[in-house]
């Protein structure tokens, strides 16, 4: 069709979701995950207090940090969209929020699995847990706003503002929940041991790098899928327009209608170009 993906995206537009960069990144991530499994489950020592359950930390902490990072990218993308009005920033914000929601859900899940052996319960009303749970719901709302159909520009602007409303709330939620809990019962959790063993620290850092890579890989792919979806929508409109035009040009170019409403001639008997009862 006439829509040139290159000009529409304002840069190097993807036509598939894979590229040499993402393939290399994907392989590196797989290798990294394998290494993380080896370091986390085999080579690093069990904790003195928590024994083997500490190993979930190598998954939980990186996933949580990446989730927060993803929401920060969404907020940044929303600001940039409102400033520059470019589809790139809108799609980046949306893609990052989806990954952020997934990683937040993973954070809560791994946190509960870690909490059960460590504290004896899946959930405590700790400030950090409460904030994370609210964060998940806040950005589920953001994704719900994104999913409302409409003109792409309207949807993008609406989503950008909704994303900012949600993001502004994060520090307020965090502050109020910290205050809420500390007022009543003091901090519930002391997370990481102050002195962390060298190999454990390395495994944790490896986890950070690996999940940052996974985030990047997912972000690029999700962005490209979203971009291609918007292209399909545009193309679909162009195709529909072209079909209507083709129908229009197949009809005669004479100024009057070939079949007038009062015509006694049945339509199948009426020749297309000239008929006697044309008025």
């Amino acid at each position: 069709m006439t829509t040139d993906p290159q000009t529409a995206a304002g840069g190097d537009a993807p036509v598939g979701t894979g590229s040499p960069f993402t393939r290399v990144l994907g392989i590196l991530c797989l290798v990294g995950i394998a290494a993380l499994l080896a370091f986390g489950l085999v080579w690093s020592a069990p904790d003195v207090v928590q024994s083997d359950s500490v190993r979930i930390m190598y998954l939980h902490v990186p996933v949580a940090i990446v989730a927060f990072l993803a929401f920060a990218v969404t907020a940044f993308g929303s600001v940039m969209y409102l400033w520059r009005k470019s589809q790139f920033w809108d799609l980046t914000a949306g893609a990052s929020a989806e990954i952020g929601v997934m990683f937040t859900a993973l954070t809560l899940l791994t946190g509960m699995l870690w909490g059960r052996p460590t504290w004896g319960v899946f959930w405590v009303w700790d400030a950090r847990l409460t904030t994370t749970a609210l964060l998940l719901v806040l950005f589920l709302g953001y994704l719900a706003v994104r999913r409302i159909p409409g003109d792409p520009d309207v949807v993008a602007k609406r989503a950008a503002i909704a994303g900012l409303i949600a993001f502004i709330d994060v520090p307020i939620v965090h502050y109020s929940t910290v205050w809420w809990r500390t007022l009543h019962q003091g901090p519930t959790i002391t997370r990481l041991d102050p002195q962390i063993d060298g190999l454990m620290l390395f495994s944790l850092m490896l986890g950070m790098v690996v999940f940052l890579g996974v985030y990047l890989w997912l972000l690029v792919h999700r962005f490209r899928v979203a971009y291609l979806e918007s292209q399909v929508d545009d193309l679909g409109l162009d195709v529909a327009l072209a079909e209507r035009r083709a129908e229009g040009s197949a009809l005669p170019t004479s100024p009057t209608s070939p079949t007038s409403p009062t015509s006694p001639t049945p339509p199948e008997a009426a020749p297309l170009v000239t008929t006697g009862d044309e008025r």
Partner: protein
Amino acid sequence: MLRDAALVAGKDLRLEWRSRVATNQVAPFAILVLILFAFALDPDRGILERATAGLYWVTVLFAALLALSRAFSIEAADGNRDALRLSGLDPAGIFLGKAAAVAVVLLALEVLLLVGVIVLYNADVHGIGLLAATCVAATAGLAATGSLYGVLAAGLRVRETLLPLLLLPVAAPVLIGATRAFEDAFSGTTGEGWSWCVLLAIFALIYTVFGVLAFGPLLEES
């Protein structure tokens, strides 16, 4: 801007006054919720007395959802949204006016609910000043965030389900802060209560400023 706000708020309040939806539907609903809480939590074991502040603000949140949904459905009907856009009023003024009208309705409801918890839950009130300040600050915050999300969701088919999902998590700090402040006001220890009140005021200020900036684009485009 303020003149436009007064105009819009006056229009909304006149509409509320004439239609009586707030008095005939929202207020009875709020009282009903108070009664339902008594069914859910055994009234004889003192749970209601201890949880009064929290139950009060949860009820206010539910009533606020109804009031907001109502405030923006009247703008969605009969192409009122276009009329509002074409009226030449300052969007920031429209936002402040809508929020102010919602806030007035909510404040009236809060007074009614306060009487309700005093009568039904046997609540003691010690700090009238703290109660009033908390109500004003919390209501301003709710009205500001609610009006932002209200215009965003207005006219959409998913409005009724979308608004609670959007508003309730954002309003969580309001619920926490207002509940703590009310607990202090009920028990008579007004030390921490005022700090929570300040938090509520900051919340209200942030979202009012954000709303003044963002309402124009939201009204124009969606």
